[in-house]
């Protein structure tokens, strides 16, 4: 059990390689086994951290600072658990999704006229490109790199994880070889590399200052040197770019919306969280001493603008997937409001800092489930109706009740309406803002919820709208896909009903050890 932390990285990696080696239809089986195992191992790791506290593993038996260590505290376990659950949902969905895709492509390589977006498919004469085959290795790689990211305790190792994550993500985006996806993928790749470079430069500077790379040692060093300060700025901007915080979100809408649905879901729900995780990890451990109120307020302000602009852009989108992608832009803004709240504003010993920290992470959790469900729902609609134009969804609510129900539940979670996980996050962040007297964040957090309601409700009301036109019979959708959409949405709801345990998990090894005892509720 204590080695779950290792296997949670190795299993997806092995399965990914195996799936790649075997190829063909069997890749699916291997991928599925990998997903199941990784999910179980993630669960084991969470359980282990829950029961025995912070888990540290020295790779190869070498001690820090010489060796490299893996470390799972509450935060890591929390995110690994989320990745495991969302990942399993996405995997199960993907089984049927790509089976469907591949079947559509295999017998007749010529482009399907009803799906104009698939123009790139079937190029290359006799050789048929089956996205489903390539999906599994890449998806396993993505999962493994996420887990690497969450478990690494070494800032350079984190860089490697980050790069792996980017490579896997871009490869997944262009899976279907459509032109839009390739353009988006290329832009994403370049942007992400730019971010990585800024991060890497930061790593070099920190090393120059501290001479160590281990996160724990860095946190203990309480760095305040100029190099660290510059590194802080560089790493922050690099990670903001990777996390697509406004106005550095330029690559996100296209990339997230042009990928296949299971990929979009993974990107929006998980990959964005990777960069976010890294930023808060660094910010509250390495830069605790070097961070300033002005930087934090600025990041928060960008988050606030992201909420407003993202929501406004979301409502202006004609395609559902783009709308959801812009919703991610807005929701990422929420995550970053946590930084000024939990940061160095006001009394450093105040309990609100811990509340904001848990609140922001809970929001990340809720967004993970909700956004995955939303993208998967959009995928169902896209493959059933042949389009995802919001204006033309009229009347589809009666044909896809569960899909829209899930969409609504996920929307509730995004809005922060109780009972949902989003509410818990919003509640904690709001409490923190009120307690610390940072009223400007209160306003944006509340207004943001209403703005979110604006686009979620419009999709739903569009769907409920009485059907005026005659529609062709929709393409049948496998049940499992619908079930997974619902399951993920339901998770975002259930996590809001019983938040005590996940929140307790977050306390394990959290950077606010001194504050936790003071938290009153």
């Amino acid at each position: 059990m204590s080695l779950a932390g290792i296997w949670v990285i190795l299993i997806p990696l092995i399965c990914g390689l195996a799936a790649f080696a075997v190829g063909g239809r069997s890749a699916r089986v291997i991928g599925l086994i990998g997903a199941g195992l990784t999910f179980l191992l993630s669960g084991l790791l969470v359980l282990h951290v829950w029961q025995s506290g912070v888990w540290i593993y020295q790779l190869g038996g070498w001690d820090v600072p010489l060796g490299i260590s893996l470390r799972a505290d509450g935060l890591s376990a929390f995110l690994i658990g989320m990745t495991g659950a969302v990942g399993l949902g996405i995997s199960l969905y993907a089984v049927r999704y790509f089976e469907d895709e591949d079947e559509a492509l295999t017998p007749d390589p010529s482009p399907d006229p009803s799906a104009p977006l698939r123009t790139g498919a079937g190029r290359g004469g006799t050789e048929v490109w089956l996205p489903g085959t390539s999906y599994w290795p890449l998806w396993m790689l993505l999962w493994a790199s996420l887990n690497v990211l969450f478990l690494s305790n070494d800032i350079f190792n984190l860089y490697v994880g980050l790069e792996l994550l980017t490579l896997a993500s871009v490869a997944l985006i262009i899976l279907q070889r459509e032109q839009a996806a390739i353009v988006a993928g290329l832009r994403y790749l370049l942007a992400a590399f730019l971010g990585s470079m800024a991060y890497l430069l930061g790593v070099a500077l920190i090393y120059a200052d501290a001479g160590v790379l281990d996160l724990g040692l860095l946190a203990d060093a309480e760095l305040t040197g100029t190099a660290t300060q510059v590194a802080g700025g560089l790493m922050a901007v690099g990670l903001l770019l990777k996390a697509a915080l406004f106005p550095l979100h330029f690559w996100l809408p296209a990339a997230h919306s042009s990928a296949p649905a299971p990929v979009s879901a993974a990107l929006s729900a998980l990959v964005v969280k990777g960069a976010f995780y890294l930023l808060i990890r660094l910010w509250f451990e390495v830069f605790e001493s070097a961070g300033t109120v002005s930087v934090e307020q600025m990041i928060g302000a960008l988050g606030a603008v992201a909420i407003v602009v993202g929501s406004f852009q979301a409502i202006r989108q004609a395609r559902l997937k783009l709308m959801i992608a812009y919703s991610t832009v807005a929701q990422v803004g929420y995550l970053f409001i946590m930084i000024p709240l939990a940061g160095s504003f006001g009394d450093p010993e105040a309990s609100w800092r811990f509340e904001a920290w848990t609140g922001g992470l809970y929001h990340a959790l809720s967004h993970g489930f909700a956004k995955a469900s939303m993208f998967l729902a959009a995928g169902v609609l896209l493959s059933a109706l042949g389009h995802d134009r919001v204006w033309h969804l009229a009347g589809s609510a009666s044909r896809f009740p569960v899909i829209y129900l899930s969409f609504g539940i996920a929307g509730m979670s995004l809005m922060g309406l109780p009972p949902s996980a989003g509410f818990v996050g919003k509640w904690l962040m709001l409490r923190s803002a009120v307690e610390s007297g940072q009223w400007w964040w209160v306003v944006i957090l509340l207004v943001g919820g209403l703005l979110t309601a604006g686009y979620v409700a419009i999709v739903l009301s569009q769907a409920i709208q009485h059907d005026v036109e005659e529609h062709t019979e929709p393409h049948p959708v496998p049940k499992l896909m619908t079930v997974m959409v619902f399951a993920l949405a339901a998770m975002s709801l259930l996590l809001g009903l019983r938040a005590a345990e996940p929140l307790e998990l977050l306390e394990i090894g959290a950077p606010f050890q001194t504050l936790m005892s003071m938290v009153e509720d």
Partner: protein
Amino acid sequence: MMLYLWLLVLATPLTLAFMIPFGGVVRRRAIDLMPFAAIPALIMALPREQTAVEVADWLLLGSSFGVDQTSQIFLLLTATLWTVAGFYARYYHADDADIHRFAFFFLLTMTGNLGLIVAMDIVTFYASFALMTFSAYGLVVHTRSAKALRAGKVYIVMAVIGEGFLLTGMFMAAYSAGSTQAEFIREGILDSQRSNLIIGCLLAGFGIKAGAIPLHVWLPLAHPVAPTAASAVLSGAMIKAGLLGWITFLPIGEAAMPGWGTLLVVISLIAAFSGVLIGLTQDDPKTLLAYSSISQMGFIATVVAVGLAEPRAWGVAAIGCALYALHHGLIKGALFLGVGVAHETGNDRNRQRLVLIGLTVVAIALAGAPLTTGALAKSALKEGVYIGPEGWSVWLDWLLPVAAIGTTVLMGRFIWLIWRHELGHVEHGQYRGMMIPWIILVGLAFPIVWLAPVWFQVDVSPAVAFEPGNLWTSTWPVLIGAAILGVIWWQIARTPREIAPIRIPAGDVLIPLEWALARIRPPEPDEVVPRPPDPVAALSASWYGLFAEAQQGSRTSRLEGWFLRWDVAGLLFLTIGMVLILFMLWR
């Protein structure tokens, strides 16, 4: 045990009323039994000893039932009149396709009327009062004629205003009393800081029903348009509900309220006289009778006013009130029913003669001629007046007989109108069925009124009517009235012409009021009224507009398109990076 008897009094008409909607045999049975609905009440009105108040602690806000000496006389009157009217109506409406509707409202109104008499707490009283008021609307508009509908409208508007006054008064009274029991209410009104307001509200609220001027406007409209049987109970029994309300809940006899007494006595005397004067100008005998009722209620209210001003007088005056109410109720009922019977006579001389004789007898009784019920009632009233406040009796001693002259003349005109215009006017072919209850009522009125004081052993004995002074005061106004009638008769006999050239329309002061209201009231809108703008709805509409507009045309706004440009984004990356580094350094 007694409690259930009281409840039976109410349950009987109520049950019959709710049998009617079922239709078929059940409905027919209910209509057949309608005349007997008030029999339990009649029986309960007979015992000489009043039993203790019975409390039903589960009903309404805790109801209590019972009668005292005064209200028992009211119960006797009401039960008798409803029973007679019930028999009468059974035949009057024999051919009426809507008899079931009449019977339904008739029985409900009866329930209310009986309920308010046996209620000993203000909530039950008010509930019954409301039941009576709203059900009587169905009686008023029964014929559905334009006249009836207008009368109904005026009636219901006034009734609602009355309810408003009562509710206001009741709240304050019950709060001050801390109870809903009538006896505590009376004390509570006196204890309250707002006792004048309460008294004003209750006077006005009950005054509307009692036809007190100037709240009487509905009465001359509503009483005549109702079917005859309903008119009889409206004018005979229900009008007394307002009076009973005053007697039961106002703290009369417990404290001197000369101000209210004076106000009421002035209003009542105006009613007593103006009722006669306006009544004289009417052509419809039923309207005339309605005005007569206003006038007669003025008489009774005068004594209430005496009680208000002088508590000592109330003991006797209350009995006077009750006896006068008994007299007026039975006699007025007989007069109204007589109008209906007169219509049924056809050309049969004997029938016509019988009706005219009967009507004359009761008319004389109403005028208060010696040996009639009126004489006794008036004498009883005067007993109260004598003990009244200093100086009042002098005036009242003269004014009341003068009003009686008016009544005599009015009754003369009534008989004249019946004789000349009403005999054999309409015919339902139910002469016998209607005549018999009427005759019985005429026949019973005298013994009931004469025996009631003896039977109930009240402080006023019938003998007062035979005291020389009273005998004389009951005689001369009638004689003078008869003389005036004789002169008029002689005049008409010489040169036939219209004797009352002025016609005051029924409803008198209502007419200018209606006119004024029609001027100020805006016309009813045909379509939807414009609504004030709603900022929130506008906001949601504009948000939706943003979406709809984007769906039609452009996708991404220009600003957003700018953000999506690679070079712009790169520059922003650079800027933000620089700013962050600067902020990090600048602490």
